[in-house]
């Protein structure tokens, strides 16, 4: 009985590992085949030296950072305020933050294109800078479920009421409390949310493409439609970037386990 269940578990694990590793191995193998007859890193060299790669990756990097900053500024005060003062709003706020998982991104961006077009009250698609702003806001919307849950969970793990009241007694005003007391206590939650946001945003295709911005996702799609070996190299790079962001979450997540023991 005991042994039998272990055999089943190993079988499931081996089959699963094969399913997940073979595509990665195949992609890697293919990315090395650019030079005829021998393995080389030519495809990576070509990709990394492509000015369009650098420009689009840099652009998406900037958008991801702005998304994280705006997201933190929006989510942290809200989650803190709701827990502290308006617990009865928790249900509705949580529901709203989960809506982006219900409403597909393509539908949300479709709505943007209709209500923020150049003839509307708020013509956010009118010029490029404004569209960049709209792209950042759309990414903040996309990342709302991850960011809110990460921040809310870490707020729940610390006694924010006592912390806030203690800071109040010492004469701190609200921005000081948020920045100097609350933020350091939930740093690991914010970082988890931030890296998850980063992983979601960096290669995002649908919204960037429909808003016509020169982001990494549309660039990937374009290269994929026109080149042979470069796409596989890009896929490996994208996988490495995703892996790095998740690795950083693990790193800060484990650091988080240590924090409660501090006096």
């Amino acid at each position, binding site marked *: 009985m005991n042994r039998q269940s272990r055999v089943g578990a190993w079988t499931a694990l081996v089959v*699963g590992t094969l399913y997940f590793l073979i595509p990665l191995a195949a992609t890697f193998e293919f990315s090395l085949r650019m030079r005829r007859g021998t393995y080389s890193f030519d495809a990576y060299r070509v990709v990394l030296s492509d000015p369009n790669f650098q420009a689009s990756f840099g652009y998406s990097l900037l958008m991801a950072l702005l998304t994280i900053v705006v997201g933190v500024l929006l989510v942290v005060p809200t989650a803190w305020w709701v827990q502290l003062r308006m617990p009865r709003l928790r249900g509705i706020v949580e529901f*709203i933050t989960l*809506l982006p998982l*219900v409403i597909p991104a393509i539908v949300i961006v479709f*709505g943007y*294109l209709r209500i923020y077009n150049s003839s509307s009250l708020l013509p956010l698609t009118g010029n490029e800078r404004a569209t960049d702003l709209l792209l950042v806001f759309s990414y903040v919307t996309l990342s709302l479920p991850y960011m809110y849950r990460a921040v809310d969970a870490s707020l729940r793990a610390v006694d924010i009421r006592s912390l806030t009241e203690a800071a109040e007694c010492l004469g701190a005003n609200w921005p000081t409390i948020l920045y100097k007391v609350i933020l350091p206590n939930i740093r690991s939650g914010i970082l988890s949310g931030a890296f998850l946001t980063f992983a979601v945003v960096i290669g995002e295709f649908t919204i960037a493409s429909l808003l016509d911005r020169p982001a990494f996702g549309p660039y990937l*799609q374009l290269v994929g439609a026109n080149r042979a070996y470069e796409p596989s190299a890009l896929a490996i790079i*994208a996988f490495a970037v995703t892996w790095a*962001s998740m690795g950083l979450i693990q790193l800060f997540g484990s650091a988080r386990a240590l924090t409660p023991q501090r006096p």
Partner: protein
Amino acid sequence: MTASSETAPQDRGPGRRAQPGPAAPRAGRRDTSSAWTWLGVLPFFAFALLFLILPTAFLMIGAFEDAQGHFTLANFRDLLQPGVIDAYWISFKVSAASALGGALFGSLLAWAAVQGRLPGWIRPTLLTFSGVASNFAGVPLAFAFICTLGRVGLVTVLLKKYADVNLYATGFSVLSFWGLTLTYLYFQIPLMILIVAPALDGLKREWREACDCLGGTAFHYWRHIALPVLWPSIIGATLLLFANAFGAVATAYALTGSSLNIVTILLYAQIRGDVMHNQNLGYALALGMIVVTGLANGGYIWLRSRAERGRR
């Protein structure tokens, strides 16, 4: 802007500006007026209204209007044309197949890692990898599967060379229904693992031991103990997986271009170039997607609450 007056009905104070609430002075008093308290959540509700609710509401209303803005249900009647129904049907099939497959294999893998008494390092490794793979969707994933199962993909070539199986002679194509399903599983299975692993943690080892002591078999254990506890999580997660696949665009678009007629790709083409020659029909198409993903998520919530009530 009407947004602020709608989100903070209590905010009737004269001359109060919509500054970020937590920064507002005096708000810390125990007897704060509710107007000040509401200011704290105003930025969030304003943001949600502007970038989530209004855009969606606009499409929902537009779906019930004709080109002149009069109320009509004609858009939904027009949705019943063969091209659109096919698109919904293929989307439904791919989403259902990848959700069921993801749920099955994801649960098995999660069970193996959590309850399978494997070496300790396997569980954290699997969960970390699941975090990565569930986010490895979109264009790069499509590239990976073309390299694997495409016409000159590694698996296709190796099967032909060593096993003498010509994959493409069997009618398989990575651009087809099965190809897309197999590709979607790459992010569906990890997502399932992430959702179900905590639920599996809730299965206490004593339950299994109690079952064994009373002479129960593995079948008895699963039929009468484990599955009744797990099924809301499993069914709920399956519905979430379904909604997840139904709204996906990038993977399918990069994989198949526009050769596979699924509803997100149709909507993408409609947004790009009004291929259905009727803006309001596009809104109806979008509303149809929200209804499907909304039902899937609503079903999940309903199942969960019902199961919780049943256990009490």
